[in-house]
């Protein structure tokens, strides 16, 4: 019974994908849709094959920005949340500005950042970071403030120092919250990097995947555009899976979300 459930969990989405791709190819072939309007999956696979190596080079550029932004979001976001949990005044006075930074469309402020920050890599990194850091700050702040009231009382009873309370109670409590934030931020960092690259255009000498998409669009190389798009979403999925894996590894012993039988 459990084996069959596991089988369908993998097989069902694959079957849906194959059927949709087949349908797509059939429509494109039968209706004779021109390549520059909608290429079929076979044409896209062809573009992926021929342009793959150069696209992978661009992907690497985008991936570097994404991962650097995600790392910065995790470290700085965690640090900001820690600061917020230590000082209520600080949290109350700064949190609204974190929200403002979050709700301001990155497309609108990216040109400014690119003007201000001379180094192209750094400019793109800052854009991606702005998009990615908020879920981590917000989640981790909630996590750090979610310590069990009775456990807090117990720590007080045993004369725990603030550092001990943080290390043995607040940080472990916040870990699942932090990881949930990281999961969201992983995808957002990629989106932030791509948006920033769109705004930056060629920017520097190295060009990321977003610029290749723009370029392919201008040249009506639509199969290549789709190939780049495919790589981008594959990257997003890979980032999600890696974070999900790390998260399960960190929580598997105790947290409900990561238990083996959580979904049965």
């Amino acid at each position, binding site marked *: 019974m459990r084996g069959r459930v596991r089988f369908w969990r993998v097989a069902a989405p694959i079957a849906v994908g194959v059927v949709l791709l087949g349908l797509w190819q059939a429509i494109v072939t039968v209706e004779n849709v021109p390549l520059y309007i909608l290429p079929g999956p076979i044409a896209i696979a062809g573009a992926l094959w021929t342009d793959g190596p150069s696209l992978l080079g661009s992907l690497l550029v985008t991936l570097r920005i994404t991962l650097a932004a995600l790392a910065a979001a995790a470290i700085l976001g965690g640090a900001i949340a820690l600061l917020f949990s230590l000082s209520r005044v600080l949290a109350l006075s700064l949190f609204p500005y974190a929200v403002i930074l979050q709700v301001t469309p990155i497309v609108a402020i990216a040109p400014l950042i690119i003007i201000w920050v001379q180094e192209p890599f750094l400019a793109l990194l800052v854009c991606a970071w702005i998009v990615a850091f908020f879920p981590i700050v917000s989640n981790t702040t909630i996590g750090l403030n979610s310590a*069990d009231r*009775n*456990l807090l*009382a*117990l*720590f*007080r*009873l*045993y*004369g*725990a120092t603030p550092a*001990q309370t943080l290390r*043995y*109670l607040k940080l*472990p409590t916040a*870990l699942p919250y932090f990881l949930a934030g990281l999961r969201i931020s992983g995808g957002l960092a990629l989106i932030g990097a791509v948006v920033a690259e769109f705004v930056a255009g060629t920017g520097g000498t190295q060009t990321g995947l977003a610029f290749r998409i723009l370029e392919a669009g201008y040249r009506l190389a639509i199969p290549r555009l789709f190939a780049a798009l495919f790589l981008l979403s594959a990257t997003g999925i890979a980032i999600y899976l890696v974070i999900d894996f790390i998260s399960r590894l960190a929580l598997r*012993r*105790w*947290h*409900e979300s990561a*238990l083996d039988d959580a979904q049965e």
Partner: protein
Amino acid sequence: MTALDAIDLDIGRGEFLSLLGPSGCGKTTLLRIIAGLSEPSSGARHLAVDRGNHGAHAAGRIGFVFQDPTLMPWSTVEGNVLLPLRLAGHLGAAERERAAAELRAVGLAGFERVYPRQLSGGMRMRVSIARAMVTDPDLLLLDEPFAALDEITRMTLNDDLLRLWASRRATVVFVTHSVFESVYLSSRIAVMSARPGRIATDLVVNLPQPRDRGLRTTPAYAATCAAVSAHLGRAMAAGVS
């Protein structure tokens, strides 16, 4: 709003005192004041166990058991029991041996590496008691620890607690709303009334020690329960008016 009003309570060394009363009478607040977790709005608390100890809370001289087991889910049973010793700043082979001994005392030998979620409610409460006892406290405070457990588990834990009390000679303050539990366990019962919470009656339980399950069926036990029930009834009636 005043939760407690003019409480005057002396607790003798080695006593097993139950605070018995309806919910909302401030039993828990009183217990927290005794523990030093809450401050009384006026008046003072003096603990003989405080003397000669450093720190406002006399770390380690008081053990506290909450209504919920209040275990750290990310930590093993051993990690949870070791917590008070870890916070005191020393952790070595001797401390691990202490934790193992406490776990043996509550019947959980061999469960060191298990996580709380793998245990039943009764076992979790045993871990919580082992954690409270690991510093060998002079004063053990329990806040309705068995209220959420089934009857059978509860009776077993009652006996375990009595055995611990007898062997360790700690002073115990036990909050409960069960007449039967308070009579079975206590050497003395303070019946509380509600709104504002005060001690209505303070009575000594003259039943033989040590006690075991046989006591529950004796006429003396039934008579004491009836008397305490009557006191509680009067206290509650006074609280309503």
